[in-house]
């Protein structure tokens, strides 16, 4: 269906992009054949490290005219195969488009290229007393990737998700045209919001080459509190109580002891407390320490009343590092604890979090799989991992399929969605289709067709 890349194509690409930034066939590392989870492996035929919008435009124009599939990729930290070149073709890597172009302290925006890493952006703006609130666990992901999946992260409880911080986008359309959507404006009621449609579209509609992101003043203080519980049930049952207390929280994370132990082994660093079965990690931030104290006192007292053993202060850089570094490494730690895993990133209404986590335990028992989980209890987004643990391939597949079916069905029943922040990519397509139904999938396909009539951009993904 698609044209295979031949010498003539490579010759052309080398005429518009310096040859040292183009790799072909065997020159391409295997790392570019898969994403972080490695569920599917296909190598692109050509890998191009782009450095400007114009370069992306030239490549896209040629690919469009010649019907060569193109996949854009940042750090490749995705988990659902979204950044894998299923049909081969050209992979456009944005890692070298990694410049922070401008911090506008009047409009409170930062303009970045898509290859800037989340951790670089956060550090850069915080040095200037500004704050980019979205905080997904994978800090080495690119901003382009974060926008493409509408990544959420730990601070969504208070600040929202990536979508809430994207003001404007410069993109290259599948035919090579360059378009600008949105801008530095705060309000915008000017027709359909195509920017918002592009956010979370996983590189299927166009390629993001520049983004204007909203910033907020950096909160003067931030204190976390780690609350241990005797059982996972007790820990998760307290979450709705915390939410109902109307306390102003930045993050509500839950974690189980086995996940913490995996992180300890993975990082080679001890967690500050491993005496209890389950933990809730809360964060409070603001500009007045007194207000923060009032808030954490209220919440800690409530939690203790509801079964928390104590509340441990995580209030200095060193303490935050010892706790949050472990939290940030959970995914990789679970991955390292087994030979193969698959994930489920469902989001359910906040009031159903406790019930859903309990249900994952039931599924684990019923199907006979180890299913560690952790997640953003405060916003209903859970990260659930099915671990193969060396079982035979055939049995693993059967068990995983069964477990996914049960989990997604239950999520649907609870009014939840297939993905909270990792996206649909390749791996979750059947579950999305089942959830939203034929009409909505058809609507998505029609939108895709308007943007990309030749279906050359990240084909085989999302819908």
């Amino acid at each position, binding site marked *: 269906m698609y044209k295979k890349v031949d010498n003539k194509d490579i010759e052309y690409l080398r005429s518009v992009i310096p040859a040292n930034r183009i790799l072909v066939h065997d020159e391409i590392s295997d790392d570019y054949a898969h994403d972080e989870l490695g569920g599917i492996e296909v190598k692109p035929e050509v890998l191009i490290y782009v450095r400007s919008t114009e370069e992306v435009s030239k490549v896209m124009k040629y690919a469009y005219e010649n019907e060569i599939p193109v996949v854009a990729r940042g750090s490749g930290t995705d988990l659902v195969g979204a950044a894998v070149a299923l049909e081969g073709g050209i992979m456009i890597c944005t890692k070298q488009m990694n410049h922070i172009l401008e911090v506008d302290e009047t409009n409170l925006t930062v303009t970045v290229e898509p290859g800037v890493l989340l951790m670089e952006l956060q550090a850069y703006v915080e040095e200037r007393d500004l704050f980019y609130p979205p905080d997904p666990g994978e800090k080495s992901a690119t901003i382009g990737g974060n926008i493409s999946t509408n990544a959420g992260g730990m601070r969504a409880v208070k600040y929202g998700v990536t979508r809430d911080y994207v003001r404007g986008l410069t993109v290259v359309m599948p035919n090579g045209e360059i378009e600008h959507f949105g801008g530095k404006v705060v309000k915008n009621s000017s027709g359909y919001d195509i920017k918002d449609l592009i956010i979370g579209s996983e590189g299927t509609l166009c390629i993001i080459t520049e983004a204007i992101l909203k910033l907020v003043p950096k909160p003067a203080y931030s204190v976390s509190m780690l609350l241990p519980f005797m059982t996972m049930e007790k820990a998760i049952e307290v979450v709705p109580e915390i939410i109902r207390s109307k306390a102003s929280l930045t993050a509500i994370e839950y974690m189980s002891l086995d996940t913490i132990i995996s992180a300890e082994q993975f990082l080679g660093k001890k967690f500050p407390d491993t005496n209890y079965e389950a933990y809730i990690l809360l964060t409070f931030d603001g500009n007045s320490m007194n207000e923060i104290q009032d808030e*954490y006192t209220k919440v800690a007292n409530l939690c203790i009343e509801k079964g928390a053993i104590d509340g441990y*202060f995580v*209030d*200095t850089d060193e303490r935050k590092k010892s706790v949050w570094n472990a939290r940030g490494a959970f995914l990789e730690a679970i991955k390292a604890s087994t030979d193969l895993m698959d994930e489920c990133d469902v989001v359910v209404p906040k009031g159903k979090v406790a019930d859903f986590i309990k249900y994952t335990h039931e599924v684990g028992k019923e199907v006979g799989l180890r299913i560690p989980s952790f997640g953003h209890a405060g916003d209903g987004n859970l990260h659930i991992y099915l671990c193969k643990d060396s079982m035979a391939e055939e049995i693993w597949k059967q068990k995983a399929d069964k477990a996914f079916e049960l989990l997604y069905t239950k999520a649907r029943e609870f009014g939840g969605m297939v993905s909270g922040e990792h996206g649909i990519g390749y791996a979750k397509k059947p579950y999305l289709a089942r959830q939203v139904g034929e009409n909505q999938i058809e609507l998505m396909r029609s939108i895709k067709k308007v943007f990309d009539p030749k279906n050359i951009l990240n084909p085989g993904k999302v819908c």
Partner: protein
Amino acid sequence: MNIIVCIKQVPGTTNVNVDPVTGTLIRDGVAAKMNPYDLYALELGFKLKDKHGGTLNVVSMGPNSALEVIREAIYMGADGGVLISDRKFGGADVLATSYTLCSGILALGDFDVILCGKQTTDGDTAQVGSELAEHLKVPHAANVRDVDVDGDRIKYVSNLDNKIVTAKIKTPCLLCVDGEVNTPRLPSFKRKLQYGDCAEQIRIITFDDLQDKDETHYGLKGSPTQVERIFNPDKKSEKEIIKDGNLASEMYKILRDRKFV
């Protein structure tokens, strides 16, 4: 076992300005915290206490604001604390500081072991612990990574530059604890509720409580060190030497693990 842990309040960030006239750190208005190295010593002290029983008290020298870190240690699990505080102690160098700490500790009575952090993040001299041991005339060891009780002695593991030494030391003794040897426990909200401002757990020792009343032994007057200039040192980066194997792939692995590539 009677354990004492020396702690200090230091600026909460590394971006502290230096007074151009006096050459001392400007601490006013800067958020403060417990010296991170002292936390490792505290945790090692808790480990000893948890295993062998006894009491753990912290000792700090500093202005009244240092009560904050003593309270924090109590919230972490310390039984009590002592603040050695007097205007006469201000401007002390390592000699005067260690002498003042020694005088304060002697005023407290007997102890079995004193644990200190290897250094503070503000002064960075890494000498107060050893000098305190000299003033107290007790044996001491530095770079300690682990401790346990062995009969009437303390068995400790010390990390010297090119070897790990396991040795025993007579009590009473002083041990300077290396950095990053454990993950210090966190302060407890419940203990904070229980002890509040810790008025009953904290004792304040002033100049008048000390036996030696010679003011030239304390503070600026007792400090022979003349500070010419204080400045932020260049950041030291970690070193890792790879000698064997496929060097390129080893290096690539490190870079990849740390996500540089």
